[in-house]
């Protein structure tokens, strides 16, 4: 079977975004990739990863890699492609337009925009991915239970889904995020995940209702499978393709929600680079800085586009007839 172009494009872009997220500490960091301190080779950038303590330079915490000349005995052999930390302020280089040195310019605190955009990838993908996983878990549980349960339970659960769907996602997510006792990435994930599950639940419920009448479910039931086993071992794997489509699309929407909330200042905590946060800084400027608006928007756009393409590509694979029209 020929792989659809949107699946290919979506996969390529998704892998690129994932790579940017995974390698963000290596791509943009003022700590060099390879340095020599007191005659020994070490990699301060690599040591940012957990479990990479072996890469730490001797007395690394006391070395300021931005200092020129570097301390005695230390030299940079290979610096990172973007030699700036996302949070490192430099009040001598405020709002520099894109050019040599700072490829995408700097923000009002002199932080490098490219470095911040790159470090926005892990935040966006982590929040989007985890929030989607949370809403998938709730949605599959609620939808599956509703589809298999007796009519009374089904009615109540369906009502609950309709109820949650009545609240605009941004409004509910903002209220949930404000209600969190300890603001942070965890409560942000919870706020987004808890607002976005009802669509998945409704979809999975209809999927369960559709499959309930099929003979293989009867056979499994006759063989003694209980409801949890039916749900997890039979119904779930058999609706995996449409669930993957929904999940992939949902990641993009969750990332959009996250950046919207970060733009309003109630998303990722301050001190963490995020695309929405950069956009908020652009909005607060009196002297306009177009690079603060354009580049995070493009990163956001490409990531959401990758998720949408992936979703459509997967749908085309799973259901070639329907996608011909869309």
């Amino acid at each position, binding site marked *: 079977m020929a792989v659809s172009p949107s699946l290919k494009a979506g996969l390529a872009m998704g892998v690129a975004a994932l790579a940017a997220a995974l390698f963000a500490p290596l791509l943009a960091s003022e700590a060099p990739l390879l340095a020599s301190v007191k005659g020994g080779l070490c990699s301060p950038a690599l040591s940012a990863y957990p479990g990479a303590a072996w890469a730490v330079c001797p007395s690394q915490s006391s070395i300021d890699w931005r200092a020129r000349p570097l301390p005695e005995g230390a030299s940079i052999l290979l610096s990172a492609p973007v030699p700036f930390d996302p949070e490192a302020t430099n009040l001598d280089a405020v709002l520099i337009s894109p050019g040599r040195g700072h490829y995408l310019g700097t923000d009002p605190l002199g932080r490098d925009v490219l470095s911040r955009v790159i470090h926005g990838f892990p935040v966006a993908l982590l929040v989007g991915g985890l929030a989607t996983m949370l809403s998938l878990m709730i949605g599959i549980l609620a939808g599956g239970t509703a589809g298999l349960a007796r009519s009374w339970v089904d009615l109540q659960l*369906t*009502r*609950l*889904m*309709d*109820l*949650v*769907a*009545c*609240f*605009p*996602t*941004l*409004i509910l997510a*903002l*209220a*949930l995020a*404000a*209600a969190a*006792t300890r603001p942070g990435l965890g409560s942000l994930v919870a706020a987004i995940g808890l607002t976005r599950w009802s*669509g998945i639940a*409704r*979809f999975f*419920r*209809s999927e369960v209702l559709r499959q309930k009448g099929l003979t293989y479910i009867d056979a499994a039931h006759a063989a003694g499978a209980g409801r949890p086993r039916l749900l997890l071992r039979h119904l779930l794997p058999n609706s995996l393709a449409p669930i993957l489509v929904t999940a992939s699309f949902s990641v*993009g929407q969750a990332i*959009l929600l996250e*950046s*919207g909330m970060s*733009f*309003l200042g*109630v998303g990722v905590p301050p001190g963490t680079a995020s695309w929405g946060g950069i*956009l908020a800084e*652009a*909005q607060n400027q009196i002297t*306009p800085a*177009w690079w603060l*608006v*354009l580049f*995070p*928007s493009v990163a*956001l*756009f490409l990531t*959401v*586009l990758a998720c*949408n393409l992936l979703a459509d590509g997967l749908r085309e694979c799973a259901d070639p007839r329907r996608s011909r*029209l*869309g």
Partner: protein
Amino acid sequence: MRGYLFRRILSVFPTLLGITLVTFLLLEILPGREMALSGAGESNLPSPETLVRLRQTYHLDEPILTRYGQWLLRLCRWDLGESLLDHRPVTSTLRQTAARTLSLNLLALSLALAISIPLGTRWAVTAGSMRDRVGTVFLYLLYAFPGFAAALILQYLFAVRWRLLPLQGVSSLPAAAPLLQKTWDLASHLVLPVVCLAYGSLAYLARFTRASVLEGLHSPYVDAARARGVDERVLIWKHAFRNAVVPLVTLLAALVPALLGGSVLVETIFSWPGMGRLYFESLLNRDYPVVLALTVVTALLTLAGSLLADILYCIADPRVEPEQGFHGRLS
């Protein structure tokens, strides 16, 4: 059909009750209520005596169910309390901001429909051609572009760079200005927010219209009509499009929460004094009566939208008696 409509309208009431319960519980877990009530900041913490007095004034020591019941009764009488910040009744604030937000949203929706329906239909008719393909790809890209980022870019280009349109707000004229001038001023302030709000649904609606008209054009009844010699334009608009309208109606209802949620961002960006901005600011300031009222009202609007969609659907297509109502069909 009448039985279905009756049942559908009845089914609104449990949801209605659920909406109020969820909102109330949500507000109940919001931290910092006493602080907000006393108007204290980090620097001047209220004394324990003040706190006790506050809890008594606002009946915070009574059991939660009692307070929920009291609030519900007041809600039924459309008494939403008064704002903790400016002590104005919430209902009057709500009336003002709701008018602004709804006018913004209605304009945006009309704009989106006015562009997307002819565009989507046209693209469906010329499906497969080069122009159709380019258009489809363009719409697809547009759909993925985040609305609030587009709003920021448009604001930068039109208000800052080229100075064609006002940056934000509702009006930049004194109250005594002549009416014609004021109308023009209001219109120029409306352009960017309306475009940005319409933008998100535009791509979605056009894609949807294209798909459903295309499906209609490929169906046997259109072939039959064509064989009878019906004019091509009549075929498109009277046959294919008429049938595409039915799913479009339900889609409109699904857009209500998206538009209301989008209002928060767009109104904040353009300082439009509507419900969305008020909601966000009240949430930040812990102005609970306002947050409570706005959450309930947005949910009610969404509910009303989905009910209206079901009723319209029923009128447009009396054969259908959707078992699960509006939501069952969407998924």
